[in-house]
Structures are given as structure tokens and as C-alpha cells.
């Protein structure tokens, strides 16, 4: 079972490699060395570097303010800072583009993707800050370090795993981002692949660019591994960890509040405000109830089906990795993480090609779409399911057995109650991702199947902003509960 899951997960990667080898060096050279590719590469690199740096600064600053200062209303800010996750990047860029065309191009794209993705850095860094042992900082103060030097030499190195992990996520998301950048008319590899595929069904060219994209992802992954190194960041020794004291902001309170407010307004207020604006005053606003309902139903059912399927697929692999550690189980587990580095468009392209070539009957079916979701979002489910299984150590099984409880009964009374919240969180993550997924859905959805995301896209791309608005609003509404759960999970996941 686990082997099967792992094999599914590496289909796209194998496809890209096999394709690149099959096309031959000459043809590959011909397709790659073009001014167009250079331009795309420049755009992509610029955007990734800029956005990763900006999100790192903004995410860390927000995390520090929320976790370490006496800012009023910190709980509310925590939720608000996670809120951009409920607004898909392409809805965010819709919000801006429909207000002003000046956000098209590099600086606009940088602004919008930064606003959309900074929570990916904020959440892990905030969680790390909460879990840090204050004794480390106190030691630094005792050794004569000031606040800034302590932050730089003691706190920042501890935040490194969170920062790097978050930065990696931002980078991978950017490489995969299609909707937002397409709408802002800022071409990158992903938008170029889509255009190639759609305009001319130019398979070889699209696939070749996909290979380059995958290469970029691998560079990011390796870079993160390299930077993270082998240092250990755990607390040493026993005893109950204390909470760090909060720093008084004093006269800086009002400017800080204003800055945070501005950030939230730009990141959440603008897209939501413009959705509301178009809902109320748009000339093309229409409420085709039947269409809205059917798209909502499709999105919801796809989301639920994919969430259940992906969590179920993740269970055996995670179980092996947690309970039966060994080279084989580690390899299986790692292979399910590959899709994390593969943009949705590559997964979709791979599945289109593979299904047309080998399993024609499932091409253009919901099953294939679900399979794509499963492959793409398996890593998210894996992380949660793994963490959940770690909550139920085998020692508790031993204790239950010694109290006369059999294997099945132990599952029911100990294991399942302990891992259920984690499984739920994993499923919620997948659900959230599926409801707002655009790229793979555009490529793989059977003809006639329309989701909230594809309807929103079709309308807003043809500048029918009013007609797009209801779909976007529904998407945000559906995503909200899951996002709230996520922000709570991030607070709880650190041992109290």
C-alpha cells in the first residue's frame, strides 16, 4: 500500500525526467536556448528572490510583535495575520487589478504575492518564538548582549529552521503560481507553460519549460537543505519551559498598530473590499443562482473527496515512517514529499500525458482530477498525519495491553482518539488547498465541470469583474473556517 502511494507520488517527477531524456539533447537545446526563456528565467528569479526576502522580513517582524511584545489584541492579530491564507493569490490580484491597472508588471506582482504569502513565514516563525526557551535569551543578556545583539546572535539562529522552511514554501508557491501572475501580466515559467499548452497544444515546448521549472524547484530544495545544515535546535535538559516575558512597546505602540493595520488592510482588506465593491456596484454583477450553487457543490464535493482520499493515502506511509523506522520506510516517506516541489501545472501536464498515452479511459474524468489533487497535496496531509501519529507513542499501546485491552480495542480507545484531531487538521489543509486550486483544475477538469475557482477565473479573465465576484466571495467564505483552524493549530502545536 505504502509502496503504491509512493509510486503515485513520483509519477510527475519520473515523467519530467523521462521526457527530457527522450526528447534528445539537440531538440532540447533548440527549445531552451531562446531569448524568451532567458526573459522568463529573469522574471522568475527576480520575483522569487524579492518575495522570499520581503516575506521573511515581514513574517518575522509580525511574529515578534505578536509573540514577544505587549501589543494590544494579540490574539486577534494572530488570526488576522493568518487570514491572507483564506484569500487565494489570484483573488488577491483580482482585487488589485480590478481597482487599478498600475499593479501590472514586476513591482505590482511583487507587492501582491508578498501580501499573499507572508503568512507562510509568519506562522512557523511565530510557533518557534513561542517555543523558545527564555533561558537562552537571559543567558545572552547576562553575558552583556543588548536586545538587538541578542536577537541577532541568539534568537535569529533559533528561528532559522522556521524561516528557511517558510521561505522554501514561499519560493515553491511562487514557482507554481499561475493565476495571480497571469492576471498581472507578469510572465514566468508557469504562465508560459500554460500559454504554450493552451494556445498551440505545443507539448514539447511546454514540457521542456516544465523541466526547467522542476530544476528551479530542486535548486530551492537543495539550497534550503544546504543552509539548514545539521545543527540541532532542540531544548536540552528537563524541567518545565517558561514563557518569555513580553517587551513593552511604549511609545512605539501606536506606530506598530498602524503598520500592522496597514498590512492587514493591504493583504485582506483590498481583495475583500473589492469583492464587496463588485458585488454591490458592478455592472456585470449577476447572481446566476443555479450556476453558483452547482459550482459551490462541485468545489465542496471535490474538496471533501480529495481531503478524505489524501488523508487515507497518507496514513499507511506515515504509520510506517513513525512506527517502523528504517531505510525503506524513510525512502517511501520522502518520496511522497517530492510533489511538494512540483508546481501543480507540472503534475497536471504529467497526468495529461501519461493518461492519454497509457490509460486513455481516465483522461477527462473526475478520477484523474482527484488523483492530481492527491499527488499535489499528499505532503500537506503527510505532515499532519505524521505529527498526529507521534502523539500516540507505542508506549501507550503497551500500557493499554498491560491493562488487558486487546489490539482492536486499543485502536478504538487510545490510538484513534489521540490522532483524530491531527487527521482532521490534515484533511482541512487539503480541503483548503483543493477549494482554491486553479492551475491543475483548469487543465484536468472534465469538460463541463466548473468549480468556484475556474468560474471565477473565466469571468475575471474576460474582465467581467462583477460576474466573477460572487465566485471569489464564496471561495473566501469556504476557506475561512479552515484557515482559522490552521492558525489555532499553529498556536497549539507548540508544547505548552
Amino acid at each position, binding site marked *: 500500500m505504502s509502496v503504491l502511494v509512493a509510486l503515485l507520488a513520483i509519477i510527475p517527477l519520473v515523467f519530467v525526467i523521462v521526457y527530457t531524456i527522450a526528447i534528445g539533447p539537440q531538440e532540447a537545446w533548440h527549445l531552451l536556448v531562446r531569448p524568451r526563456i532567458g526573459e522568463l528565467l529573469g522574471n522568475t528569479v527576480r520575483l522569487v528572490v524579492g518575495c522570499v526576502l520581503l516575506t521573511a522580513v515581514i513574517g518575522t517582524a509580525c511574529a515578534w510583535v505578536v509573540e514577544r511584545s505587549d501589543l494590544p489584541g494579540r490574539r486577534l492579530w494572530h488570526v488576522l495575520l493568518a487570514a491572507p491564507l483564506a484569500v487565494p493569490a489570484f483573488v488577491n490580484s483580482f482585487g488589485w487589478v480590478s481597482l487599478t491597472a498600475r499593479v501590472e508588471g514586476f513591482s505590482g506582482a511583487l507587492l501582491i504575492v508578498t501580501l499573499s504569502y507572508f503568512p507562510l513565514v509568519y506562522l512557523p516563525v511565530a510557533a518557534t518564538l513561542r517555543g523558545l526557551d527564555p533561558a537562552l535569551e537571559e543567558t545572552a543578556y547576562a553575558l552583556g548582549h543588548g536586545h538587538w545583539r541578542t536577537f541577532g546572535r541568539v534568537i535569529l539562529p533559533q528561528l532559522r529552521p522556521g524561516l528557511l522552511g517558510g521561505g522554501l514554501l514561499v519560493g515553491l508557491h511562487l514557482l507554481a503560481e499561475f493565476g495571480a501572475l497571469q492576471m498581472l501580466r507578469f510572465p514566468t515559467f508557469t504562465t508560459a507553460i500554460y500559454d504554450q499548452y493552451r494556445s498551440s497544444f505545443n507539448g514539447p515546448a511546454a514540457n521542456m519549460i516544465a523541466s526547467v521549472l522542476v530544476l528551479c524547484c530542486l535548486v530551492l530544495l537543495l539550497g534550503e537543505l544546504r543552509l539548514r545544515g545539521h545543527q540541532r535546535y532542540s531544548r536540552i535538559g*528537563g524541567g518545565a519551559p517558561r514563557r518569555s516575558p513580553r517587551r513593552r512597546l511604549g511609545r512605539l505602540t501606536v506606530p506598530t498598530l498602524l503598520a500592522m493595520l496597514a498590512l492587514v488592510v493591504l493583504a485582506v482588506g483590498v481583495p475583500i473590499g473589492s469583492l464587496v465593491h463588485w458585488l454591490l456596484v458592478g455592472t456585470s454583477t449577476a447572481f446566476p443562482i443555479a450556476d453558483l450553487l452547482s459550482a459551490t457543490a462541485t468545489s465542496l464535493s471535490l474538496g471533501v473527496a480529495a481531503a478524505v482520499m489524501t488523508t487515507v493515502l497518507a496514513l499507511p506511509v506515515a504509520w510506517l515512517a513513525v512506527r517502523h523506522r528504517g531505510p525503506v520506510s524513510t525512502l517511501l516517506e520522502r518520496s511522497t514529499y517530492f510533489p511538494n516541489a512540483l508546481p501543480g501545472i507540472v503534475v497536471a501536464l504529467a497526468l495529461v500525458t501519461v493518461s492519454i498515452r497509457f490509460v486513455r479511459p481516465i483522461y477527462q474524468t473526475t478520477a484523474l482530477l482527484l488523483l492530481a489533487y492527491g499527488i499535489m497535496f499528499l505532503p500537506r496531509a503527510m505532515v499532519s498525519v505524521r505529527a498526529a501519529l507521534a*502523539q500516540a*507513542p507505542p*508506549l*501507550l499501546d*503497551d*500500557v*493499554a*495491553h*498491560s*491493562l*488487558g*485491552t*486487546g489490539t482492536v480495542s486499543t485502536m478504538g*480507545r*487510545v490510538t484513534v*482518539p*489521540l490522532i483524530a484531531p491531527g487527521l482532521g487538521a490534515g484533511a482541512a489543509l487539503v480541503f483548503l488547498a483543493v477549494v482554491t486550486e486553479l492551475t491543475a483544475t483548469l487543465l484536468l477538469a472534465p469538460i463541463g465541470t466548473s468549480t468556484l475557482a475556474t468560474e471565477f477565473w473565466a469571468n475575471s479573465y474576460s474582465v467581467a469583474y462583477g460576474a466573477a465576484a460572487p465566485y471569489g466571495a464564496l471561495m473566501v467564505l469556504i476557506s475561512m473556517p479552515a484557515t482559522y483552524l490552521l492558525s489555532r493549530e499553529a498556536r497549539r502545536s507548540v508544547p*505548552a
Partner: protein
Amino acid sequence: MTSLSIRGVTKRFTATPVLAGVDLEVPAKSITAILGPSGCGKTTLLRIIAGFTDPDTGTVLFGDRPVFGAGASVPAQQRRVGYVPQEGALFPHLDVAANVTFGLPRAERRDSGRVAELLSLVGLHEDLRRRFPHELSGGQQQRVALARALAPRPAVVLLDEPFSSLDAGLREGTGRAVTQALRTAGATAVLVTHDQGEALSLSDQVAVMRQGRLVQVAAPADVYGAPVDVGVATFVGGAVLLPARVDGDLAFCALGALPVSPGDAHGDAQILVRPEQLHLHSDSQSGGVPTRVVDVSYYGHDAAVRVDLLPSGPQVVARIIGAEVPALGSVVWVTTRGSAAVYDAATTPTVLVSEGPELS
């Protein structure tokens, strides 16, 4: 409650032998401590008794019921063992009452009188019943874990280093409460520990384990007073080890002529006395051996005083009550009370002085 018999139990993990033939009898309603340094195999032995791990060979009997033998193994859930792991391992999703009654049949789980009874057995107040594990102190968690283990009236109770995660202050009180509860319940118990004080103070029988073997199984006073070899002697307490010549019932050594039990070997040997057998006197009237004080570790209730025998003799350590500490550098006279234990002469003459228990 039943007795526990372990016969010829061996276990190896891949190439490493962990248990090399262990025999142990634990009488019914008694507490046996398995004492050994970390890595000696004591936890493996405990897991074999519990049924979490099967031995390679040997038999394990609860009373006269074999739970492992001739290749047949009774699964853990049918052995009726009470298991108290390190750090308690309470079920984090259940409150105290639900944890305590986990092993009871469904009908009995609702019985609030039973919960109260079990909690009072381990010295906890009934008000804790609705608390969750993370709301309890370490000592309380450990006691709840014991109540949970005792609830189904197990044949044997197994405790795996139950106090090692507790603060020194909590350890003694929790240890006393746990043994009291075990005795009240009339339980047959096996306690695994690497702490000499814990083993000696809490058990009826101490089994000293070294490299997968039990090297001495005896009452606490015998293990401390008549250890089978120098290794056990230094492991269970402070030791002064000196080369000596044994003649009849006297041993002649740097501390003078000390009585030994008759029947011990004659000729060159090493003798062992405990630091608390040495007494320091401020004048030569006592007839002791003159020494100079080189180091004092003061603990309040008592003190360890290191002295060099004059003029150039070996260093020995004396444990004396705190009120009588001599000044550093002063000359004091040492006398020895009680008898010395005799061991074969070491191949190289050694003088070993240890102030207290040391690991391995």
C-alpha cells in the same frame, strides 16, 4: 497475588546479548528491586515479564502458570500485569478518573467509589478525578499511573524507573507513597532502577544486574553489608578498599587489625569497609591511626571527610555526622567499627576510595 519466577531467560538483539541467563524468584506480596547501571538489560527483563518482548529462551511463571515457556507466549493483554512506565505515560486524552478505570470492565468504570478508593490508595485526593494529565505534577502523574496499574488487581506490578523523572524532593515522598500503596494492595512488584538509595529503601529484595546477569540477589542489608564482589560493593554505596593480609579472623591493613568473618580466605587479600564505619577522633587517646584532613564535603546532616594516613599512607574517606567536622589540615585519629568484608587480592594492588554510589 502470585509469586513470579524467571528461569534461564536469555535475549539478544541482533548480535548483542542483552540478557545472558537470568534466574529470579519474586515471592508473592513482596517488592523486588532490579538495580543496575543503564544499559545492563534491566528494562528488557521488565518488558519480557510484561509480555511486550519475548525472550529467546527460558521460562516466565506467574505462580505456577507459565506465561512464557516452550515457545508459547501469553500476550500482554492476558497476563494481568500492572505496568508503570517512566514518566507515567498517562493517556493524554483522558482525565484522571478515566485513566484510573481504563483497565476495568465497562460496568465498573462508572463506579465513582472505586475511583475514590484507588486514588486514596495512592495517597491522592479525590478532587483530582476530573483533572487531565497535563494539569498534574510529575509526582501526581506517577501516582495516578500506579492507581491505574493496580485497578484491575494485577498478578504482578512492574515499575520501570518510576521516579527517575521526578525532582529529588518529590522522589522520596512519591517512593514512600508508592511502596505503601503496593503493600496495602498486597501486590507482587518488580521495580527497575539505577538509583541505589531507591533500591535499598523501597524493596524487600535487591537483584543487582550487570551486563545481562544478576550478580547478587539478596535482602537490602545483605547487598550493602556483604556484597559478593568489589563491583557490587562500590555500586551500592561508598567504599574504602585496601590491600590487606588476612590471618584467622583478623585482617591487617593500613587502618590496623580489623575483624573479618571466620572462614574468609587467608593470606593476601583486599578488604572493604564502608565510610560510615570510620570514626575520627581529635586526640591520640582513642588508639586510632593518625591522619591529616585533606578535604571536607559538608552536607548538613553529615559530611564526607577525606584524610591521608600519616606519614604517607593511602587516602581514605570517612562519613561522619555533620556536627563533628574537623578543620581542614588538622591531624585526626581514625578508628574502625564493625568488621570488614574480604575479597581476593587484586592483581595490581589497588586502593579504592569512593564517597558514595557511582554508576558502573
